[in-house]
């Protein structure tokens, strides 16, 4: 039992830490690597819950998550990063500097804890206690999305958000039905593919530019 709790908390901790690291690091390749780690942590959460609940279907899902988030998506990201001169380029000066970003993430985590009190109170369990982590990761993902200038790092932010949401989904230990889970994963995959293709096109037409310079459409 305690093993279950500790391992679950460990996995959730890993989830949060990787999120913080993604906010922290600037080198895109590093961000992608961390993202893969986070995918693993996510899969771990699913696996732990499956083991604890003796739920083979959830186990399968965990496997799927591992494949999708720890292998497929990072690979896509790396492809999006391209093999051009900017391979492993850096996130040049984010809109909010790293220190401030870290502080913001801390604040967001606090907010997540405050907001999700009713959730944890819904049915107290080790899993439910960890729900705030999922929400915090989601929020920091959104934060990355807002503050990062490079296409790939924005993509990473989006995926970070999605990981958080998925984690929340696992931690609420409520089954949404296989169809929905598959659909969601498929949609995410497709969205990432689309974004990746668009990123490629953008590199073609704009060169490797700062997203914040995309201001042709304005009023």
């Amino acid at each position, binding site marked *: 039992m305690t093993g279950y709790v500790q391992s679950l908390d460990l996995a959730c901790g890993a989830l949060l830490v990787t999120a913080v690291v993604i906010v922290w690091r600037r080198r895109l390749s590093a961000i992608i690597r961390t993202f893969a780690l986070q995918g693993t942590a996510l899969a771990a959460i699913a696996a732990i819950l499956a083991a604890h609940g003796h739920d083979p279907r959830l186990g399968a899902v965990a496997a799927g998550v591992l494949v999708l988030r720890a292998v497929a998506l990072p690979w896509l990201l790396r492809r999006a990063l391209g093999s051009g001169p900017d391979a492993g380029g850096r996130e040049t000066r984010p809109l909010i500097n790293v220190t401030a970003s870290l502080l913001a993430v801390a604040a967001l985590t606090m907010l997540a804890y405050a907001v999700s009190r*009713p959730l944890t109170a819904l049915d107290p369990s080790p899993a439910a206690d960890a729900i705030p982590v999922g929400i915090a990761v989601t929020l920091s993902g959104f934060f990355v999305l807002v503050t990062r200038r490079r296409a790939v790092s924005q993509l990473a932010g989006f995926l970070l958000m999605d990981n958080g949401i998925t984690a929340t989904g696992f931690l609420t*230990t409520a089954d949404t039905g296989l169809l929905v889970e598959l659909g969601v994963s498929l949609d995410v995959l497709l*969205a990432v593919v689309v974004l990746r293709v668009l990123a490629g096109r953008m590199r073609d037409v704009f060169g490797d530019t700062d997203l914040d310079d995309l201001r042709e459409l304005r009023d």
Partner: protein
Amino acid sequence: MVTLLMAAPVLVPVCVAICYLLAGWRPLTAWLAPVSAALTLASALALAAVLPGSRAALDGLIRADRLTEFMLIVIGSVGLLATAATPAWLRGEIAAGRATTRTAARHSVLVQLFLAAMAAAVLAASLGVTWVAIEATTVATAFLVGQRRTRAAVEAAWKYVVICSAGIALALLGLLLLNAAAAHAGAGTGLDWARLAAAATRLNPAVTRIAVALLIVGFGTKAGLAPLHAWLPDAHGQAPAPVSALMSGVLLSVAFCAILRVTAIADLVLGTGFTRALLAVLGLGSLLVAASLLIRQRDYKRMLAYSSIEHMGVMALGAAAGGPLALAAVLLHMLGHGLAKGSLFVSAGRMLQATGTSRIDGVRGLASRLPLLAACTGAGVLALAGFPPFSLFASEIGIIRAGFATGLGGVTAAALILMIVITAALLAHTSRMLLGTDAAAGPAAGGGNGSSAGGAGASDVTAGLAPVVIALAACAVLGLYAGPLAGLLHSAAHTLTRTP
């Protein structure tokens, strides 16, 4: 049989899409798309005729009630309008060298998938599936927005996908929380909205609040409500005209329908106060944004897009007012806005082909150069401004009346003021484009290019406008006499407001 009718709106477009995939875009296949839209419309009407109440099919995967039927009618009619106008438009594009038959084929495939996804979104029995379908529309339309691979198109597509995915992700979070609440309620319901509504009394209010807030904001992104509205003008401005028509006329409404479903459940759990406040704030915000950006607008496609934001805000206010009258008005507004905005975007596309510029000050004296096109545009704008006999007049009257009746007086008054400003801006910009002599338009319309394109386009520009005329006429007739549709409206509104 009914099951087939219910499945048709999803299956037919998929099949047509496959046809396009195999056969490509030819003069013959060009008319498959309107046929599929017509089939959707027909099945929706048949469904409305034969199916009195709610009914589930395909072991609870899809469910159709009056609201679904009405939404299918919206999708079918606006889809028919847009797809019927597509061949002429595509021919124009190909003639102008901005597209090839390959792009045309890809365009048709994606449009069909887009239609299928929207139909699935309203047919789905589970909010989860609805979410999946709505996110699928983003994926399907992303490449349509970026079809012309210009810088602007790619930029618009990127913004569109990023903002929409981010917003819709919030909705997913909300869904999961709602699901958790449902699971804890012990109904084992999953996200089937009918069963959620049934089990509403047992849902945990505190959790539901958070979930509903996230859901409304998230789906609001797709519905073009502030604060995550910003993708809309870019995408609508860059997308091909028929696609803009579909996105503005149907996609927003489909997303808004999801909001209505959520609101119906939330009101059962939390009482009307919470969603009313939230929707009123979002609606007023959207109106404010639309007004601020319409006053000095320079691009007529963006102008239409912002007017869509305005109308979504109006619908949000109607939903905030709640009650059968307001909701019926909101639904009627969806249909009317779909028809008017759809025809306006189609006309705008033709205008772009004729004048070669999408800047307002590039178009002058259209009434004397292309009378029919000018008439369609003018009529459409008058419809948007809420003039009778178009149906938006009736629906806006209903919404405002409900607003004053349900103690939202202050909000409604503020909305009225903003709507006056918006109407003034719309009419001013449009009159500058349509009225007067085209003497002034010579240099402004992109130099010789504009005028020459006008000369070339003048003949076939008017060709593709038959659907527009029909749509506007339908909108006008609807505003004076809804006939059997009125009953459907009321029962659809009733399905939303009924207590379990």
